[in-house]
Structure formats: structure tokens, C-alpha cells
């Protein structure tokens, strides 16, 4: 089939130019074919560069381009929606021996990908904070609904500190496990570091548990008020059962 050999040669730099591709005089046209090969690879590298700017900063632009090229040849996009390209890039980083000495890399990539997904997520109107002003036993038996743009990332690495250090000149990261929630107030998603127990609490809420059940899943000393205040201030609470 024409397009099978064309497509295979696009992604394999060692493949010969398909013999049916010719110049105006009917001669073989390898340089002309390489225009398509370059368009495909440079376009996908640019898409990964735009999607993972912190990873690029961490490994350097030249190494990133080589990393991206290796990835895209092995895993060309499966979706036509390029703004979300890179779903399998974190897993690729996790399994790629040349970056095995940077164990946090895959989770930072997951964070960048989640921020991008949050940016394009559906809108949802926040609830009036007054809706939480009900008797405590009623509140505890309620279920909360969170904005579709909310994303939760748990990591054994200090991914929030790494992200801050590379985007907002934050202080040098120290070794720590960090849980991050991405919240989108208006149209700009931002990662927030969760206090201990915050991720377990949000996971329970996302799974449809009541507030009481979610609290039971959280450790002693978990600061419910702080987490609710964060969700309210970022317009991330979109519903509560009566």
C-alpha cells in the first residue's frame, strides 16, 4: 500500500525513500521526501517542547529535542488533537534508561500534562459559599462536587517545588514526597501543594464519598477548613448534595 510505505519511511530515518516518489523529470526524489520527514518530526518536537517546558528546562533544549525525537518515532500521536499530545510522554520518560538518574522527571511531566488538560477542561459554575453554612451533621453527610478542571497528582518527588523553581524562580527543591492539586480559577490552572492528608481527602471526595467518609480516610490533624477554603477561593467547588 502506498501510504504504509510512505508513513513508515516518515518515522524511520534509515528507511529508503519509496520508489514511486519522483521529481518532475521522473527521477528519485529523496530530498523532496525529506521535506515531509522533517515537517513531521519538527512539528511533533515543537508540540512536545510547547507542552513540557519544565522538562525541557530540566534536561536542556538539545537533549530534550533528542528525547522528543526518540519518543515520537516510537510513539507517534494517536489523537488528532495536538493541544493534548504527550499523554504517553511521562511513561516514556519513566522507562527511558538515559534519564533513569532523574527519577522525578516522569512525575513532573505528569504535572505539566495535567495542567494542560486542566486548561482545556469543561467549565463549571462554582457554588455560593453560603451553601456550606448548614448544620455540621448535615454538612458531614453531604457529597461535594469538584470542578472538571481539577487534577490531582501524587508523587514521591518534590514535583511542586521543582515546578515552582523552574517557572516562578522558587527556592531550590528539597527531597520530599509532594501531593499537588491543580485548580483553575477562571481560565488559568495553577498547581497547589496539598497539606498531609489532602490528597486522600480529595480522592475520597472525587470517588463520591460523603464529607464524613472522606474525613475518616484522612489522617489526624488534617486541616479540613484550609482545604475547603482553597477549593472555594479557586471556584473549584461546583456542587453539594442537599
Amino acid at each position: 500500500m502506498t501510504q504504509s510505505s510512505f508513513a513508515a519511511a516518515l518515522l524511520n530515518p534509515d528507511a529508503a525513500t519509496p520508489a514511486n516518489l519522483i521529481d518532475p523529470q521522473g527521477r528519485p526524489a529523496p530530498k523532496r521526501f525529506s521535506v515531509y520527514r522533517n515537517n513531521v518530526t519538527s512539528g511533533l518536537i515543537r508540540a512536545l517542547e510547547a507542552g513540557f517546558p519544565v522538562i525541557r528546562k530540566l534536561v536542556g533544549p538539545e537533549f530534550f529535542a533528542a528525547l522528543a525525537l526518540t519518543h515520537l518515532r516510537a510513539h507517534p500521536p494517536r489523537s488528532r488533537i495536538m493541544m493534548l499530545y504527550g499523554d504517553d510522554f511521562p511513561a516514556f520518560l519513566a522507562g527511558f534508561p538515559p534519564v533513569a538518574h532523574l527519577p522525578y522527571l516522569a512525575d513532573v511531566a505528569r504535572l505539566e500534562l495535567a495542567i494542560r488538560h486542566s486548561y482545556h477542561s469543561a467549565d463549571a459554575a462554582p457554588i455560593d459559599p453560603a451553601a456550606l453554612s448548614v448544620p455540621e451533621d448535615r454538612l458531614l453527610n453531604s457529597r461535594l462536587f469538584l470542578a472538571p478542571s481539577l487534577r490531582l497528582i501524587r508523587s514521591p518527588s518534590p514535583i511542586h517545588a521543582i515546578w515552582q523553581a523552574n517557572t516562578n524562580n522558587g527556592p531550590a527543591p528539597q527531597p520530599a514526597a509532594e501531593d499537588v492539586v491543580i485548580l483553575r480559577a477562571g481560565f488559568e490552572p495553577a498547581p497547589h501543594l496539598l497539606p498531609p492528608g489532602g490528597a486522600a481527602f480529595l480522592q475520597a471526595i472525587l470517588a463520591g464519598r460523603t464529607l464524613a467518609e472522606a474525613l475518616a480516610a484522612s489522617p489526624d490533624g488534617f486541616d479540613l477548613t484550609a482545604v475547603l477554603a482553597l477549593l472555594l477561593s479557586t471556584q473549584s467547588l461546583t456542587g453539594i448534595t442537599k
Partner: protein
Amino acid sequence: MFDAARLTLPNLPGVGYKPQHFSAILANAAPVGWLEIHAENYMGGGGRPLAQLRHLAERFAISVHGVGLSIGGEGPLDQDHLNRLKTLCDWLQPASFSEHLAWSTHDGAFLNDLLPLPYTADTLTTVCDHIDHVQTTLGRRMLLENPSSYLAFAETEMDEVTFLRAITRRTGCGLLLDVNNVYVSSINQQTDANAYIDAFPLDAVGEIHLGGHDEDIGDHGLPLLIDSHGAAIVNPVWALYVHTIARGGPKPTLIEWDNDVPDWPVLAAEAARAAAILEQVA
């Protein structure tokens, strides 16, 4: 508010919409009279892209230009992608929908480029079947864009204009004439660009594209132009545009600048040049 003027593209210059130009466009878009978006950039669930688009659609006729349908692909169209396109067209009600005579997916992989196909009786049938499928699903007539080409296929049986003319006759679709692509292909294939325009079914053209290209050297030292959408429109392309408009009359004309996107005044100046040419003929 219902506004019939937004249901068709006016015979004015338009530009490919870039988010960095949002404020400039709302402040003063003149001489730009309509906007084109890439369909795939508005297939998310929400957020700023869709909010901006809803806002712009209240003020401007919008052209939806797809880059991912792979109409020239050997395999069937991706029904999921077509459904996403239908969702977008159903709520946006754009003035126009267009796609490319090209393929971009194979065996489930999306190659993110507009790849060429040979022009044969078999590929003609496949492309027409795909266009029927698109037009039936969307419930609207689409425009098909001529590609820029860098090489030829040994098995090609007919020239591009013959192929496009046959597609319009069989499917009833309209055409999007990319004048820069005609020029790029004519240099690369050593054909006559003016003759291409003279043979083209301009009655079927619902939109024109103008854009920039890069210059390179190909096999055997022959010039090779590369469609880049990343530079100003060159004088020979403007001349070919004048020739096209003189022959076919004024058409909605897009300034297409997708890479190394300039500040708004640079785009507006290109649009003004197109507007002057359109006014001379009107």
C-alpha cells in the same frame, strides 16, 4: 443576536485567529472582516479557547478549517473525530467548513502533517466517498483545499485540477484555493501557475488562502519551495492572486500565518494589501 452576515464569509480579507491577537481584534479588526480557526484547537471541553471563540463568533463570521480529518487517507474516516467536528459546527454554526486534499493518519498514528496522494481513479473514488461522508455527517457543503506539493507520484493518472474538478462534480463540494500552494507546487513541479489558475473551476471557490513559504534547494540542484505559513506573502504570489481575482471575481481571502506569528499590525497590513486588490475588482 441573529445576524445573517455571519452565516457566510464576506468578500473581504480574513486572518487565521491566534489568541495573542484577541484584544487587538476586539479593539479594531479593520480591514479584517472574518476569522478562521483550526477545528482541532477548539475540541477541548471548555476554558479560555472556547470562551474566546464564543465571544469572537458574536462579532465575526468564522471559518472552521480542519487539519486532522485525513480525507485523502486510504482507510475510513475516524468517526469519533468527525463527531467532534460535528459538535463544534453544531454549536458554532460557522460560515464555512474546509479541509485538505491530503492525508495525515495511518494505522491509528496521527502524523500531524498534510501528506500527498497520487491522483488516480482509485484515489478519486476514496476521496469522494470521504467527502460524501463528511458532508452527510455535518449536514453542510464543505470546501476542499488544494495542497502544496514537493514531489510527484509515478502512478498519478491525471493532473491536480482535473482531479479537483472531478471531486466537485461528484460530491458537490466547493473548493478552497490556496494561491501560495499553487505557486509553491508550480515551482516544485515545474508547471505554469497561471495556467493552473486558468484551468481551475473558480466558480466552485468559496475561499482563497494566501501565505508565506520558505526557499530551499532540492534534488539535482532544483529550487524547492516549502509551504511554511511563517513569513510574508511574496510578490509573485500577490501577482498570482491578482490574476485569480481578475478572472474569478472577489472571494473571501485569508492571510494564513501560523508559525513565527507576527504582531497584529503586520497581519493587518497584509490584509490591507488583499483588501486593496479586492476593491479594485469589485
